[in-house]
């Protein structure tokens, strides 16, 4: 039972990193990334490929981060010339492109995937996941409450306003993408070493949808909210497995039922609490002296 709790905590921490990464993009900057699983997958596959080639894990991690940054810049190339609505389509397409490539390229393991050396000690895995989450949290927090974050929020509210104030929106979007994608890739590297196995089935659009559910549930723009959202979503996901075992539900019904539940959560949040469980805090300043 304790082992299971440790595993749950580890997974929550990893998904929090993914959620925090999405929060920097969408919550702060307004970038709709429907391919959030892509940098995560890139990190995981880089870790796996490096391990297959006999390289040590830091090399794999480095490769994963570099790959995510390079791909983020590639994805930005068409996006910068289109309005933000297309951003969703481009990222969605890029994520699927990667998954289908992994599925069909034998050197990437195809549908069978690749094995990755696992953490020998689950406590160590938990420690690493919590450390990464703490780092992502601190980074997110520093950005959200900085002049940089302030300009990101201006960009989120109105791109034209940012340009009117003399800022180049594309430059800010690029910086945000690099940071957020590297963060997600780091989560992916860790995920690969925790699970010990990567395959295209782990990096589908559904995974992106689950990260979005966590973000919308927790509160876009709120660092604490995202982590809470990730925890709730992962716990719901895990507990639904027990429920299914208890009432003897087939696995496919369970999987689809879970997605339907997340969809319902999204609809209810949009209808009744669009600001999320933990709304973004208003940055209040001490009253100006008279």
């Amino acid at each position, binding site marked *: 039972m304790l082992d299971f709790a440790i595993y749950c905590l580890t997974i929550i921490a990893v998904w929090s990193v993914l959620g925090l990464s999405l929060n920097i993009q969408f919550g702060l900057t307004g970038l709709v990334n429907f391919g959030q699983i892509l940098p995560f997958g890139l990190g995981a596959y880089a870790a796996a490929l490096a391990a297959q080639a006999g390289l040590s894990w830091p090399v794999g991690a480095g490769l994963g981060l570099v790959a995510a940054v390079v791909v983020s810049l590639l994805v930005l190339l068409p996006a910068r010339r289109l309005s933000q609505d297309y951003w969703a389509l481009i990222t969605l397409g890029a994520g699927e492109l990667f998954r289908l490539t992994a599925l069909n390229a034998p050197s990437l393991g195809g549908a069978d995937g690749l094995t990755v050396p696992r953490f020998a000690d689950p406590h160590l895995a938990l420690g690493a996941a919590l450390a990464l989450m703490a780092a992502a949290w601190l980074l997110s927090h*520093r*950005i959200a409450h*900085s*002049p*940089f974050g*302030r*300009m990101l*929020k*201006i960009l*989120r*509210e*109105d791109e*034209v*306003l*940012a*340009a*009117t*104030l*003399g*800022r*180049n*929106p594309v430059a800010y979007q690029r*910086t945000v993408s690099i*940071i957020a994608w590297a963060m997600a890739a780091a989560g992916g590297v860790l995920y690969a070493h925790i699970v010990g196995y990567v395959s295209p089935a782990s990096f589908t659009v559904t995974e992106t949808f689950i990260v979005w559910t966590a973000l919308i549930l927790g509160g876009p723009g709120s660092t604490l909210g995202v982590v809470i959202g990730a925890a709730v979503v992962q716990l719901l996901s895990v507990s639904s497995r027990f429920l299914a075992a208890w009432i003897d539900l087939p696995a496919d019904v369970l999987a689809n039922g879970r997605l339907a539940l997340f969809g319902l959560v999204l609809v209810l949040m949009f209808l009744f609490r669009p600001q999320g469980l933990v709304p*973004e805090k*208003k*940055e*209040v*300043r001490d*009253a*100006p002296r*008279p």
Partner: protein
Amino acid sequence: MLRVRDVSVSFGGFRALNAVSLEAPPASITGIIGPNGSGKSTLLNVVAGVYVPDSGAVTLNGHPLAYGRPEQVAAAGVGRTFQVPRLAHKLTVFQNMMAGARDQAGEGVFNLFLRPGAVARCEKEIASRAEAMLKRLGLAHKANDYAGSLSGGQQKLLTMGMLLMADPAVLLLDEPAAGVNPVLIEQQAALLHELKAEGRIVLLIEHNMEMIANVCDRVFVLDAGELIASGTPAQIRADERVVRSYLGMPA
């Protein structure tokens, strides 16, 4: 000196501006008037770097301004407002004002982590300037309110303040008085006189003829994309073509 020389703009087959030229010297307020659809906003958008003109040139102190790159034009010292004020509605008034300042150390990601001291110093300096600007505009008591909760007139004042945080040489104002109560219009007029006294170039699009008469040194009149008259407000009022196309016959 802001110079617009022979600027023409077409949208498809429609000629929005036809060889329009005007000059606006420092420490002056230049009005642009004309009926709806006469090309006033198009002209403003060309100067602000939103539209690329088919021909002609816009220069500030002899240097051409970038076309189609509004952020570069803004960075070159040209601030502009919009008919419907653009603000970050879900940030506070104070936050909006702070964002107007240029060259902030804390907007560089590396500075955030490697030079926190410099970031904090810069932030403090900008905060005191933002505070002073809010006082100047009479918005100090609204500092911690969401910008979206301000009245339309207050929002227009705030956007002007945000631009002034960057100390622009040129201000392009698109109908600042439209939909604003008379008290705030007077406040705006006083502010415009101050901006003029500070040596700035102010270009003012406005339908409120009283405000035009009160503040403008020179007025240019557009009609159907053509410049039909220019002169002091008094001269414009006496111009027969202007009266016929825009001001209307006295009853």
